[in-house]
């Protein structure tokens, strides 16, 4: 029995856990177990590689120094990863995903640099190395920029003159340069390192023109890039687990990216090449009508005597740290026999599905979180809709105003409810920078103030009733 076969079996098991893990992630009841299965498979693949891997031409050696270095590196990475994962605030999830993604990309790029010299003379292997290196580097520097944009270090999209043409030219030059290296196969590392730096620069150029609101789409795209880079590594080493893992994430990331774009009703090309926000400044719909205030006690009365209340949470809720108060409000109303549900728009929060995570963190049961397609028919039967910290996802302009930048985006049909109460800090426009006609409708009342303060008062008002 060859030792290689045992490793092959280990990799087979790991690959199966990856597929199962992703599949089990498709239901909240099994998702956690699925993630643990995949993590178990990963641990198995890593341990198996350290103990059992041997290069077919016998390059592999296991001096104590190397094994110790590997184990120390794994311990450092595990400790840092574990601590970061457990300490990060749930609102910072997009930043964290982009950061971890960048690490994976950098890892793939470094592998390319290290493997280059051994493979001069083998055209196929070299092409794989160069491709993995370019994609890994772009994913790394792109993720770093996405991270900076998400944590608002970099606030405004930076658009160099004719940046679309510039980026396309740079991309073509990068591919041509990579192809040249594969063709010429220089022995020294100089050209591959220049390529590596050029790919890093391209990653920066690729992400800087894109606005902060589109970063989740970019991260998802870069996520699939890193998957692809890992798969190139798998091809190089004829390593099945890297190949299956990488390709799975590559295709998963692509599907997810497209799903996000669909939720925003914008083609992917528009996210990458289009300037969202730049054109929207001019599209001012004439806003006619007046807005109407409502007091906290009137809101409490309205809700207390309602049969059905739907809460529409937006990211503003999380910014105000009001997730826990809203759960308290929900429990209180439920105790009084009011049917309460949350209407979750697919892009609510800072990335798709983010609002669910934020509400889950404050102990809201997930069967109370209703997705857009399921809640929209319910609004006609709803007495009170409470919109907290959301704006664009309830803007009727998405349906009625073809000149609006969000035109065509599916929205929550809150206007079908009997009463709409909108909590906002002020009359400022939403993320997309456009006015919201909903606020001017006769059935809409505005409840101004900080979400946390207003909701806390609302809860104490209700308790006295």
């Amino acid at each position, binding site marked *: 029995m060859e030792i290689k076969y045992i490793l092959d079996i280990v990799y087979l098991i790991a690959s199966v856990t990856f597929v199962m*893990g992703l599949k089990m992630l498709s239901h*909240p009841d099994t998702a956690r177990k699925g993630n643990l299965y995949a993590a178990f498979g990963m641990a198995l*693949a890593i341990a198996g590689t350290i103990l059992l891997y041997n290069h077919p031409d016998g390059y592999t050696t296991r001096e104590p120094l190397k094994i110790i270095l590997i184990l120390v*590196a794994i311990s450092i*990475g595990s400790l840092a990863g574990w601590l970061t994962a457990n300490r990060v605030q749930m609102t910072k999830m997009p930043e964290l995903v982009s950061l971890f993604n960048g690490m994976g990309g950098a890892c793939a790029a470094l592998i390319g640099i290290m493997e280059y010299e051994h493979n001069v003379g083998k055209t196929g292997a070299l092409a794989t190395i160069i491709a993995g290196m370019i994609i890994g580097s772009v994913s790394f520097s792109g993720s770093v920029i996405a991270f900076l944009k998400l944590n608002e270090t970099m606030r405004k999209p930076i658009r160099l003159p004719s940046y679309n043409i510039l980026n396309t030219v740079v991309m073509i030059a990068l591919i041509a340069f990579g192809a040249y290296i594969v063709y010429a196969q220089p022995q020294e590392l100089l050209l591959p390192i220049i390529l590596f730096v050029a790919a890093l620069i391209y990653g920066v150029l690729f992400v800087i023109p894109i606005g902060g609101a589109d970063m989740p789409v970019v991260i998802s795209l870069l996520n699939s890039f890193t998957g692809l880079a890992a798969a190139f590594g798998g091809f*190089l080493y004829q*390593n099945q687990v890297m190949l299956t893992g990488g390709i799975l994430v590559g295709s998963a990331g692509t599907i997810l990216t497209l799903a996000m774009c669909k939720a925003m009703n914008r083609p992917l090309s528009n996210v990458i090449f289009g300037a969202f926000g730049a054109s929207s400044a001019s599209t001012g719909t004439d806003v006619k009508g007046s807005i109407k205030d409502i007091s906290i006690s009137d809101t409490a009365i309205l809700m207390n005597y309602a049969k059905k209340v739907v809460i529409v949470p937006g990211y503003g809720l999380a910014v105000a740290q009001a997730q826990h108060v809203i759960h308290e409000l929900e429990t209180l109303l439920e105790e009084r026999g009011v049917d309460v549900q949350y209407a979750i728009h697919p892009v609510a929060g800072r990335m*798709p599905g983010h609002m669910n995570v934020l509400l889950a963190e404050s*102990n809201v049961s997930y069967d109370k979180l209703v997705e857009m397609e399921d809640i929209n028919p319910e609004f006609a039967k709803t007495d009170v809709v409470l919109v907290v910290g959301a704006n664009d996802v309830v803007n009727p302009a998405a349906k009625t105003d073809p000149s609006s930048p969000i035109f065509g985006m599916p929205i929550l049909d809150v206007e079908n409810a009997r009463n709409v109460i909108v909590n906002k800090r002020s009359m400022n426009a939403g993320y997309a920078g456009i006015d919201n006609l909903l606020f001017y409708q006769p059935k809409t009342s505005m409840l101004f103030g900080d979400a946390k303060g207003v909701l806390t008062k609302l809860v104490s008002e209700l308790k006295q009733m």
Partner: protein
Amino acid sequence: MINDIVSFFGENIQMIYIIILSVFVGVEVIGKVPAVLHTPLMSGANAIHGVVIVGAIIVMLNTPADNILALALGFVAVVLGTLNVVGGFAVTDRMLEMFKKK
């Protein structure tokens, strides 16, 4: 040229099968995930591409013990890969732990 491409496919046919079938598996498996779970899914998938760490370990195992520069680069690659894997799985678990029916 055409000869090269054909023999490239011939020599790597098993890998190419794995790639093509994995693409279909990925699309099928992911296509059914409800929007509720998109964030954990993205983060879980992110952890899985950390499998690139296997490549970093292989490089280190194949590097002669006296090549300090290569070992140092490999060390960094393993640290980064582990961060991706452990951080990714840990944070996904933390999110999913909260998804409970009450």
